[in-house]
């Protein structure tokens, strides 16, 4: 029985639902105590097993567990929705998402069978892979994106304590939903830039 990793998996799914809910305009208009009560009620509903599995468990069955990087973004989004204050600048966040997008575009085709090299194998504690990641995180913290560095560091820390069922570091760094989100954000930015040029 792996109740601990089940709880962390269900926590991720619940966090997604709560983060989406707090953005609903009618809920945003409520005073903070009422909003908190609504969210608490929603967390309880998501956790009640219906026909053997909770609504959060149902979603988890479809989505799988979210990466730590996705959880960090969700927490930032939740804090922003609740307090109106962004903890990380937009530029920093976009740089992080661009790195996620590049990683996803390189990683998933190879991991899904393109060629004989499987990068997913490196995630089982390969020291060289860890050293490369360390270099990337250190460089990112000083020169590129603090958020990317924090996401990588959080993923490595979570992997080393066995936060999820997975023993593979890649599952903590990246997930397909995050890669799709990063793609959507990048396309939105490109579209906005193109639109700006057209109107200029």
């Amino acid at each position, binding site marked *: *029985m*792996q109740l601990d990793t*089940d709880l962390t*998996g*269900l926590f991720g799914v619940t966090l997604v639902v709560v983060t989406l809910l707090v953005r609903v305009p009618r809920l945003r208009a409520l005073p903070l105590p009422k909003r908190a009560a609504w969210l608490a009620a929603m967390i309880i509903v998501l956790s009640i*097993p219906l026909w*053997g*599995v*909770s609504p959060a*468990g*149902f979603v*988890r*069955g*479809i*989505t*799988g*567990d979210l990466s730590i990087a996705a959880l960090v973004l969700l927490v930032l989004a939740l804090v922003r929705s609740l307090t109106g204050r962004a903890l990380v600048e937009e530029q920093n966040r976009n740089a992080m998402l661009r790195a996620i997008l590049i990683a996803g575009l390189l*990683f*998933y085709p190879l*991991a*899904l*069978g*393109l*060629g*004989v090299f*499987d990068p*997913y*194998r490196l*995630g*089982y*504690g*390969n*020291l060289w892979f*860890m050293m490369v*990641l*360390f270099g990337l*995180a*250190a460089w990112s*913290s*000083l020169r590129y994106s*603090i958020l990317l*560095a*924090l996401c*990588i*560091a*959080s993923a*490595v*820390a979570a*992997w*080393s*304590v066995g936060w*999820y*069922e*997975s*023993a*593979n570091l*890649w*599952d903590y760094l990246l*997930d*397909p939903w995050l890669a799709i989100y990063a793609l959507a954000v990048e396309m939105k930015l490109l579209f906005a830039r193109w639109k700006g040029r057209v109107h200029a």
Partner: protein
Amino acid sequence: MPLSRQINGMVKKYLTLGVVLLAFGQGLHQAWQRPDPAFGFRMPVIDPPVAQPVAAPQPPVRKKGRHRSRRAEQPNIANGRYISHLASSRLHAQTHASSLIELKDGRIRAFWFSGSREGAADVTINNAVFDPAQGVWSAEQVVASRGSTQRALHRYVAKLGNPVVGRTADGSLYLFYVTVSLGGWAGSSITLMKSVDEGESWSPPRRLITSPFINISTLVKSAPYLYADGTMGLPVYHEFVSKFAEMLHLDAAGNVIDKQRLARAGQGTLQPVVLVRNPQEALVLTRYSGKDNPHLARSLTTEDGGQHWSAVERSSFPNPDAALSATVLPDGRLLAALNHQEQGRDSLSLMLSADAGRNWKELHRLEEMRVVRDKNLDEPQCLHIVQGLLQNSDARLAKAPAATLDEYVDSAKARVRGDGGCGFEFSYPYLIQARNGDFHLTYTWNRVFIKHVTFDQIWLNRHLKKGANATRH
């Protein structure tokens, strides 16, 4: 930029760097502590054949109306023993993908999935035990259901599939089975249960995480094996977007510690079967689901205990995109059970290779129904054949009251006459050799029953001699 903002930015950067150093300090320590997956195989122990007394020649039993299975149950030292039974007992269900393990007391436990149809929500993982001394199978029992699995895994599960059982280095049993939450079989994940009492009871299931893409598309079909250090190798395969064979490496606690890709996408290698020949050498045979003709099974080898695998090669025998099973005989020869045809699954053969899998010859045809393919048989003719096959498959049915036999025939009818014709399927073989040298083979019988065939080394040796002149392929 004001000085205060610059200082603030520097503080943030160096604080982040501190967090990175702390996290990687822990992560690198963890990675350093993790033992590297060991390679080199552990050899299974099979007792040498017991010296048989030289029997006086016996007159052959030639009584009209007797079925082969009834004849075979007569003790016959000269000819050896070949007996068949139906391992599954549930009627009016679809049954598929069996797997076997020898228990410590010499009994055989089999697993398969069964339900109203393949992929239905009511499919369960069932098991039954064969007692070789009595020659009977116990009633089948449910080991896992969709409900019990999703409750324990705390996530939605839509359907269950292929179960595979293996013994760990500490003597426990691991039962792996396929679960799907989204889509078809390409959306599969592997779930694991453990038993410390020879399969009488099982731990709650837990999920193996084996794929970075929502953990989908890792399936299991073939027997696991042990590495020299007691860790386990589990042959698996991937089906999402493209199909290819892989190998999982599990530690003593059942955690995935490594994964190897045996073939790249597009090579159509499915359901790898690992044949450990010695501590360093192994052969992998795979089902072929590609489009190349002739439709031949694929193979690859290792010579360094599984650390590296050769490029995929064509085998010398056909494969109709169907599972196969094989085992290594104590003398190093390979014995396989497979559909020896390029299309269809209406025959099943025992094959032997004496040269490490390069050439194979057919030793014995276990099932052969290709002859009725184009005969346009009507229902009574078809069901008459089904009745005969059932009686040949299990001696109890040969003696059973007509009403009981009719029930079995009626169960089989749903599949055999499924398309209005008379189509047979003998597939998904699973072959093991018990410690006493006896062989046990189960396979899907027309998707309605699991058939069990057991034969001893004398029977096999007799066929080896008979097949000495068989055509080499």
